């Protein structure tokens, strides 16, 4: 029977504790850092050569769906009552609202070095040392809302602009496309500065600290964010039932995207799974 992913604001005190404890145990076992490594390794940008599976690509959504699913499996091996909650950043929008409480993600970073000092993932609590990263920093950092030059989280209207697009993705299937649900949700847009950071990307930048880097998985809010992003894919599917993941077929040999993206029935590294196999999750989990 499918399990349920809940809005983090609806977790009971016990559910919060069990979710946090499961995360800490997965970290203690050394499994968590493998998720960080995977995210760092699959970082290819679209101005370079090679297959892109995680970012600036149609498989942005199934790739992160699979990553969250694998983390959730690790959590449920520890405690089978646990699922990955989602953070609805269109509703919980301040540095002191959920999930930034001491019994969940902990709070903002301090001003001097952005170090998170509160909650279960603070370095000084002794359970959350960053072992994998693009820098030598060992403690979790955040800069919620970016104190030096503040900007706001995406709004429900921003999200709606993505959900309203009936087409999943369009050629050239990268960060430059201005049509299609995928990139409107992933959030690459033209322009300079914060006006060009949309939805998914904008939230990473709003959290700040390690969440803006390739090792963003080091902040456990990564999972709450991507659970909510994943929910948007489900909502989009429900709204546009005649539409599916694109491209359905791989780009041809003369196409600039040949060999660089994952079509619907192609394997999506590092896993032996296709986007097609990840479109319907209703037998594994559902969203409350």
């Amino acid at each position, binding site marked *: 029977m499918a399990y349920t992913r809940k809005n983090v604001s609806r977790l009971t005190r016990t559910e919060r504790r069990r979710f946090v404890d499961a995360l800490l145990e997965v970290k203690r076992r050394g499994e968590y850092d493998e998720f960080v490594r995977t995210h*760092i*390794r*699959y*970082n*290819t*940008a*679209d*101005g*370079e*050569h*090679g*297959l*892109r*599976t995680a*970012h*600036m690509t149609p498989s942005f959504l199934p790739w992160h769906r699979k990553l969250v699913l694998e983390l959730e499996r690790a959590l449920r091996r520890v405690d089978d009552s646990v699922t990955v909650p989602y953070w609805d950043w269109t509703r919980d929008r301040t540095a002191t609202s959920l999930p930034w409480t001491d019994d969940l993600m902990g709070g903002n970073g301090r001003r*001097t*070095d*952005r*170090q998170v000092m509160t909650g279960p993932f603070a370095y000084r609590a002794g359970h959350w040392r960053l072992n994998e*990263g*693009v*820098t*030598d*920093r060992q403690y979790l*950092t955040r800069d919620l809302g970016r104190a*030096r030059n503040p900007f706001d989280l995406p709004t429900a209207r921003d999200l709606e602009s993505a959900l309203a697009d009936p087409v999943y993705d369009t050629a*050239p299937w*990268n*960060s*430059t496309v201005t049509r299609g649900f995928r990139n409107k949700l992933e*959030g*690459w847009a*033209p322009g*300079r500065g914060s006006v*060009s*950071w949309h939805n*998914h*990307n904008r939230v*990473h*930048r709003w959290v700040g600290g390690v969440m*803006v*880097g*390739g*090792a*963003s998985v080091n902040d456990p809010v990564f999972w709450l964010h991507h659970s909510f992003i994943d929910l948007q894919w489900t909502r989009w599917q429900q709204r546009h039932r005649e539409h599916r993941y694109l491209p359905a077929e791989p780009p041809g040999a003369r196409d600039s995207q040949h060999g660089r993206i994952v079509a619907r029935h192609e394997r999506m*590294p*590092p896993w032996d799974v296709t986007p097609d196999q990840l479109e319907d999750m209703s037998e594994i989990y559902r969203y409350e």
Partner: protein
Amino acid sequence: MVLGVGGVPGGGQRVTPAAGGTRPRGGTRRDMTRRLLASAVGAALAPVAAACGRPPHTPDDGRQGGTFDETYRGRRIRGVEVRASGRAAAAQWKVTIDGRPLHLMRRADGSWLSMVDHYRSYSTPLAAARGAVDELGPDEQLRDLAPGPMGGAPEHGGGGHGVHA
């Protein structure tokens, strides 16, 4: 030591081309004095300059070939464009912060991003390097990344696996 401050207090926003660049450094005594002064205060003023949001001077256009070498917010940023022989279009940038390689990547629209600052992009390698510095905390240093399966991480000691212009 503060290099590339360019003789202007707060010149962390400016770039001094290295030897062979198109903008030779001034050689007069007055210039020297100004540089020394800038050296003393440049690191302290760089964050102020950054906060002013002046657009960066960008001689690091991939088509021209070039280098940059400056201190920005107390960090030494150096970049050099490396052209693969026989392929004029295959320009690559090797960028370091305090001597450690910064993994730069290029977007399809020609802009640049780094592994430190991964969810936005910048118009030049220098701007991306400054963006990375903005995200580094006090005493925080870049770490060498092992090459990824997708060819996405820098070669060891190579200062970047190569970004293709």
